[in-house]
């Protein structure tokens, strides 16, 4: 089968690999019909995540058709059209039993600090991902769900990470009616977080980024006020001024490891890999939120230390809520919102690349060319 493979920082290619096989009785093999490139895939692509091995296939956002099931699988049949949450999870460990699917303890031998994720390095379990024609899906009775008949692939694939993660980011903010919410990052997750903040009763939503075309989408798609941080000498001072010198009630970091805005931080972290991530957005969140406020972090950071301004967080009495999103827990409510017309995830899809041209897709997404917001990948076998 054809699969995207990692060759080193900023380099990928499509290779012929063996079709995955059933390795556990509750495995399924899914033929991928649509995959997506996530902003967090770029952290891998840029060589920022430790233990990213040459030959690894990325891709944790995908939907497809069940092609084979293991002997113990009961909930799926060959031919079912399924969406697969980016979390690999067992459904029964201490953490899964409490709803923390993204923190599953039974699927990632390489680390205890993070659960299992498809196509996201060996630090998250060494599972090849869905930017390929076929993918192995462990715990088929637990993770995947049937795609509703009324939903297209392009909406469904955004339910495997980007939309639930954005919604989860707003949830982690513990928003109450009338809160002022500032969202750092106008990528797919930030846009969905901004949109979700309204669902939770925010009184004001401000999106911060430096890419004008994405800020335009934040205004039209997410109904938010926008701030281009390059237009302000000090974004924190601007946020204070615009909130009557109080600060936002809630700040959401939807940027993660490769934040721009401070050359030293970005180069030491994102380029020279001397930190687990460039915490510029997180530090702006800490300083831009009001005392006693809440910070939500679902932007992805690596496991190495980062230069976070923790003293300010402590002195301000902030609550910091963070996690990878437990995707499947979000689905029932999000499906309701989509049916009711409150959310239409595929509105942010801008580009579609055949699997054979995935190297170009990564380059365009990484370099932010051509107004790219969300690129999809379509395998040829689909």
């Amino acid at each position, binding site marked *: 089968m054809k699969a995207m493979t990692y060759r080193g920082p900023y*380099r990928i290619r499509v290779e012929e690999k063996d079709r995955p096989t059933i390795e556990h009785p509750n495995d399924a093999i899914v033929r991928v019909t649509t995959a997506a490139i996530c902003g967090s895939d770029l952290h891998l692509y840029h060589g920022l995540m430790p233990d990213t091995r*040459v030959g690894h296939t990325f891709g944790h956002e995908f939907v497809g058709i069940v092609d084979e099931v293991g002997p113990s699988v009961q909930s799926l049949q060959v031919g079912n059209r399924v969406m697969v949450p980016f979390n690999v999870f067992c459904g029964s460990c201490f953490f899964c039993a409490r709803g923390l*699917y993204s923190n599953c303890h039974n699927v990632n031998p390489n680390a205890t600090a993070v659960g*299992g994720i498809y196509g996201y390095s060996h630090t998250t379990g060494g599972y090849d991902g869905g930017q390929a024609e076929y993918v192995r899906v462990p715990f088929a*009775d637990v993770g995947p769900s049937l795609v509703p008949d009324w939903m297209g692939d392009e909406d469904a694939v955004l339910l495997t990470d980007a939309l639930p993660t954005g919604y989860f980011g707003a949830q982690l903010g513990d928003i109450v009616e009338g809160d002022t919410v500032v969202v750092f990052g106008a990528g797919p997750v930030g846009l969905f977080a901004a949109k979700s903040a309204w669902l939770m009763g925010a*009184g004001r939503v401000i999106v911060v980024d430096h890419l004008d075309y994405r800020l335009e989408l934040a205004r039209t798609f997410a109904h938010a006020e926008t701030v281009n941080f390059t237009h302000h000498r000090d974004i924190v001072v601007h946020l204070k001024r615009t909130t009557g010198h109080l600060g936002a009630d809630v700040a959401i970091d939807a940027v993660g490891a490769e934040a721009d805005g401070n050359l030293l931080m970005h180069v030491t972290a994102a380029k020279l890999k001397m930190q687990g991530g460039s915490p510029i957005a997180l530090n702006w969140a800490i300083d831009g939120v009001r005392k006693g406020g809440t910070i939500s972090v679902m932007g992805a950071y690596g496991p190495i230390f980062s230069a976070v301004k923790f003293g300010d967080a402590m002195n301000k009495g902030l609550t910091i809520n963070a996690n990878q999103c437990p995707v499947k827990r979000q689905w029932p409510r999000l499906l309701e919102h989509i049916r009711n017309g409150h959310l239409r995830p595929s509105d942010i899809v801008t580009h579609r690349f055949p699997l054979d041209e995935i190297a*170009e897709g990564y380059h365009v997404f990484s*370099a932010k060319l051509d107004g790219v917001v969300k690129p999809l990948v379509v395998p040829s076998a689909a």
Partner: protein
Amino acid sequence: MIEKRDPADLTSEERAELGTRYTYTPHKPPLAETSDELRARIPGWGADLDPADRPAVPKMRFDPGATGARWEFPERQPELRPRERSVEHAFVTPVFGTGQPLKGVSGVVRRLAYRRFSEARAAHWLLLVAADRVDVAEGRVTSALRGRPDRLVAETGVRGEAGHEPVSSRAGRVDVRHQWIDPVIVAGPMAVAGVLAYRVVRRARSAR
């Protein structure tokens, strides 16, 4: 309900003193729109106002029957070859990925990182990062030996520049300031390896 205060109703003096008038008093600065106005303007506004409607609230909710799992401890996936694991785990987890098993010099370094250092130690991660770079060099050699050498330019996807507005897309962007480093990161290790190889060969020849 949100207190309404239309900014248009404020005098310039009031606007200038917003911080003093509100933040330095018990009151919160007013918002421009009321809840009713927001509900009318934004599809779904307030649909999840009640935290009970938010699916991951409370964060931890004991409900082992909710997942579809019919086991308390999953059947174990056969470990067909020794699988590296974090020393913070009691054993190799019941299910694991099997792609790209440890091999070569990078495998030795990765094995050391996993066996010797916990996730709490910087050495664990720094060794893994170092092994990643060794792996790239090994991958380049083994791929060439297998007759499928790396196509160094094509694999960067730089051909995607064509037709995707490479100039206008970059105009005025803050991140363009450090994009010059990208080629250094991509080509730098190759240049260093080339120089080292040249020196080794030259030293071997002069020693003969």
